[in-house]
């Protein structure tokens, strides 16, 4: 169904159908509507794009502070920062900035609301890469962005000293690379260690 021969309406249709299969009902409609409005869905040629679109997403507090410490690695990208408080916009420069509501796994309504906003962000930004330092918003952004073919990096918080976070375990099948910031937590089939934010 999906050939690689440039942008064709057939390939566009294939992308829509593949996306629809995986997202929950509430998001299906949104996917279809926005796709049809956008019309052209430019697929990037094979290989890394010269100026990647990067979604850098974190919850507040330590998660956000650690994400900021990665900023030199984001040079050469079109970055959209996503977090949970408008006040954090003061910490960045002119990069794009979006907020979502904070929610944890015990707040089902909050999670659905967050999921819808993240779906909108992912569909409008169309990132090539997602980088997250946690927590729940990062997990959902990765799940959603992967449906559009993005690659994802999960950096587990440096606060997780004795074991990696539950979300790091949950995101295992979805992140292309998971990192822990403590060497003793690295595993052959688990997160790798490549240094820390400190």
């Amino acid at each position, binding site marked *: 169904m999906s050939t690689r021969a440039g942008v064709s309406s057939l390939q566009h249709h294939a992308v829509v159908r593949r996306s629809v299969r995986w997202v929950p009902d509430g998001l299906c409609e949104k996917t279809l509507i926005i796709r049809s409005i956008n019309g052209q869905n430019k697929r990037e040629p094979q*290989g*890394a794009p010269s100026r*990647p679109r*990067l979604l850098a997403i974190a919850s*507040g*507090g*330590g*998660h*956000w*502070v*650690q994400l900021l*410490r*990665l*900023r*030199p*690695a*984001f040079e*050469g*990208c079109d970055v959209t920062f996503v977090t949970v408080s408008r*006040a*954090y916009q*003061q*910490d960045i420069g002119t990069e794009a900035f979006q907020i979502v509501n904070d929610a*944890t796994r015990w707040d089902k309504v909050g999670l659905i609301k967050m999921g819808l906003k993240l779906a909108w962000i992912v569909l409008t930004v169309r990132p090539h*890469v997602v*980088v997250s330092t946690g927590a729940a918003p990062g997990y959902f952004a990765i799940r959603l962005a992967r449906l559009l073919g993005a*690659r994802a*990096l999960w*950096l587990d*918080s*440096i*606060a*997780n*000293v*004795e074991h990696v976070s539950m979300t790091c375990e949950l995101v295992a099948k979805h992140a*292309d*690379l998971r*990192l822990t*910031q403590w060497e003793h937590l690295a595993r052959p089939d688990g997160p790798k260690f*490549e*240094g*820390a*934010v*400190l």
Partner: protein
Amino acid sequence: MPFDRMVRAVDDWAGARGRRDVFAQIGSTDWRPSNLAWSALLEPDEFRRRVREATVLVAHAGMGSILTALEAGKPILVMPRRGDLHETRNDHQIATARQFLALGRVAVALDEHELPRKLDEIESLAASEPISRYASPRLLAAVRSFIHDVR
């Protein structure tokens, strides 16, 4: 999340020692301090100013607070939140506090009984060189490689 146990302990200590030089950002804590100047939430630039002007920071054992203190070169005394008291999700702050104490990066008071004793020694905590604003070169290189898909 509220952290009445810590705010109250600092408030009691400031009263007992006649300290007038303590400012607290208390978040959603219910306890209203009598001996501390306080605000529920500071705007980011006021927060940064207060950190710059402070001699010492006292906080929960959260990475945001710890990294803020280290980036500003300020000594920090931390008290971990406990999961069983519903101060946070689990006991990871206790592990964080122990690990960063072992690395010589923070001072630690494990509970509200130890906190006043540690606060009495607070002037002896030395300031250190501010750490760099950014992650280690190794981690930055790994993230860069991933983003640009360098194999």
